[in-house]
């Protein structure tokens, strides 16, 4: 394309965005797109999916709203609110926390933390965000032992006006239940944070997270009533939502893509999806469909030269922190080994791939099925810290066609968190003071700011690598 043309297209984006309604793509006009309506189940473009974080948050909130848990949380919230409202109570709290700390210091035989450094203020949550509820509870547990004495001193000096309730502190059992619940919620919060990350691959996590939470958060016999009720509700809700997607949901194609992504993660490729045979079959079929689709696209583009272009890995030798990804890897490890054996023997002609690591030698002639079998049969070290994309960079030349599928499936973001972040930026750009900032102007700042933060992050990562 000539530079002139490029400038033209750049200018086209300058057209005020509100004009777009006037020229809704022809596809939407006149019902011409209806002709394809029947084929909607077979397309691979423009597939809609819901944000995994939003969905997860619905599940957790369902869990937090069961009566057993809600009553405990309500008590915590009342105490916290009192702490935010009453300066008197706040003072009592700081005194009580200090006394508590003095006792603890003597008990443990350590230096006493100065009063100025102790936290005694409680946090009130925002009920629509379960993360803030978790923060509230954690803070409460931290100062927990001091609360009863602070409350009793406070009420000793304060006359209650009529109609005002005396705030109660959760009793010992409830406190114990709370600290158990925090452990479970922390697990989910950690998963939720990882899945919202932008710098690591998240597409495979949506499915693995489900199994991870299901296993790690499974109710055990030692749980208190409240905790096991919470766990059961959250897990049931997650299960229901996943089932809805599996049975077609709003987008019948989506479930296939969701599970196929797991197979393209070399460290999860033999996941058995909790022994759901039909799910594994869907995953495999969708992965094949996507690979074929990408191959057709590649052919059409004609631009793809020999898929042997492999950049040197650059060997990032820094010790990576163990991420959620890594945790899930090791969590999947035993069943993967078992499944790998089953898969390899079941793969028929591809079984030979095990003898020769990459099924090499037949690169040009083997079929897609053989390549897939060789990919599955290739042993990987589940405890390695190699990022998935680095693995694929090194192995693309051995599995050029499967790699195409990986390019499609691994890039899918699991959440719409990036968009939410954009709007948090937008909120700062179009603030109350700058409310006259119009859309196109604000857009420039938002887009450029985003580009700048990303560039900086990349530079920082490179610097850390060197």
């Amino acid at each position, binding site marked *: 394309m000539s530079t002139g043309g*490029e400038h033209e*297209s750049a200018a086209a*984006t300058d057209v005020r*965005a509100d004009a777009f309604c006037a020229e*809704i793509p022809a596809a*939407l006009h006149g*019902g011409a797109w209806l*002709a*394809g*309506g029947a*084929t*909607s*189940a*077979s397309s*691979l*473009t*423009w*597939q*809609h*999916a819901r*944000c995994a974080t939003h*969905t997860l948050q*619905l599940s957790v909130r369902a869990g937090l709203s069961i009566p057993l848990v809600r009553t405990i949380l309500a008590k915590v919230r009342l105490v916290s609110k009192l702490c935010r409202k009453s300066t008197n109570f706040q003072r009592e709290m700081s005194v009580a926390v200090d006394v508590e700390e003095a006792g603890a210091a003597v008990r443990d035989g350590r230096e006493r933390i100065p009063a100025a450094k102790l936290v005694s203020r409680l946090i009130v949550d925002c009920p629509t*965000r*379960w993360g*803030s509820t978790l923060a509230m509870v954690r803070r409460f547990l931290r100062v927990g032992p001091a609360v009863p004495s602070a409350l009793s001193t406070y009420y000793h000096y304060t006359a209650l006006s009529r109609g005002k309730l005396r705030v109660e502190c959760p009793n010992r059992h409830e406190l114990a239940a709370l600290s158990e619940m925090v452990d479970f919620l922390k697990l989910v919060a*950690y998963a939720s*944070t990882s899945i*919202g990350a932008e*710098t690591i691959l998240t597409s495979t996590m949506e499915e693995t997270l489900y199994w991870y939470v299901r296993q790690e958060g499974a109710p055990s016999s030692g749980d208190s009533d409240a905790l096991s009720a919470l766990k059961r509700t959250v897990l049931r809700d997650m299960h229901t939502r996943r089932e*809805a997607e*599996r*049975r*077609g949901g709003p987008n*019948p194609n989506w479930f296939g893509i969701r599970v196929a992504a797991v197979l393209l993660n070399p460290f999860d490729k033999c996941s058995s999806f909790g022994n759901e045979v*039909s799910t594994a079959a*869907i995953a495999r079929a969708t992965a094949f*469909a996507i690979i*074929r689709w990408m191959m057709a*696209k*590649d052919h059409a583009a004609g631009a793809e030269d020999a898929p042997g272009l492999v950049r040197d890995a650059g060997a990032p030798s820094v010790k990576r922190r163990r991420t959620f990804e890594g945790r899930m890897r090791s969590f999947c490890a035993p069943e993967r080994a078992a499944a790998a054996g089953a898969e390899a023997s079941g793969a028929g002609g591809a079984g030979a791939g095990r003898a020769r690591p990459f099924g090499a030698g037949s690169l040009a002639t083997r079929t897609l099925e053989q390549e897939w079998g060789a990919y599955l049969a290739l042993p990987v070290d589940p405890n390695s810290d190699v990022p998935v*994309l680095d693995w694929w960079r090194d192995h*693309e030349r051995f599995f050029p066609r499967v790699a195409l599928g990986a*390019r499609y499936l691994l*890039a899918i*973001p699991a959440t719409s968190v*990036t*968009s*939410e972040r*954009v709007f948090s930026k937008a909120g700062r750009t*179009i*603030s109350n003071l700058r*409310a006259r900032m*119009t*859309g*196109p*102007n604000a857009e420039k700042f938002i*887009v*450029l700011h985003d*580009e700048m933060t990303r560039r900086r992050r990349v530079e920082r990562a490179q610097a850390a690598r060197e």
Partner: protein
Amino acid sequence: MFFKSQKTFHPTHPVQKAFNERQVDMVVSTLCPESIVDDEAYVSMIFAANPRLTVASRSTLSRAVTSRFKRHQLRVRTSLKDLDVCHVNSDMWTSTANDACGSFVVSFISSGWELETCVLRCCIVEGRHTALAIAAFLLQIARDFGLSSKIGVVRTDGASNCVAAGVVLGDVGGRQDLEAGHVEEADGLAMGLEIGGDCGGAAAVRGGAAASAAASTTARGSSSLDGADAAHGVAGGGAAPEFDSDDDEGGAGDDLPDVGSDREDGAGGGGAAGQS
């Protein structure tokens, strides 16, 4: 003025040019109002650092931001051209100025196997946020950037209008694929769904039926009336409520626009480290 006594740099002087770039950097990075360059304290700070520098005027600064934005878009366009596939996530938001904004963020794996994410647009969506409006917004931007046939997955929150938009988009995508002649793969995928059918084939059929029902509703609307307004009216009156009632959980995420808290206070230090 007091600093005119010294000779200032010529506008094309390398130091002055580097300074201008930094100035734009600062405004973009801190997201502070452009009017900071009119602030006396700011001007005197620059003067103290180097009396020969000239602080740009507001209009010059905003022109510089615009040209940088255009350069950035050009760069993005060229990098998107060689792509086979990319994915979108999008969301709707209303600013304090009551402008309804929509974002369009693409993520893809580059030829060197790096995961890249890039905000393409964040612009005003006029009218109500109906399913058709959202779908049209996304299609329009994709067409602008030449991505119409390259978008794989669109990720939005679970709001019912977004979910309904997803169905519309799926139909458009299906038609595109049909035109491009990728039918054989279609069979492959259909087969996959049949395999899964033992547990819920009926439900899948139900989903398909809902899609075509919505399609016919919207089609009737846009043939009887024409233009965007008609489409809006129909989507607002017909399609969206229909999906509300059809989908049992789709709307539930609507009232929870912000997931920020999950990130911020979720796992404390560990979580933050996972991201950076």
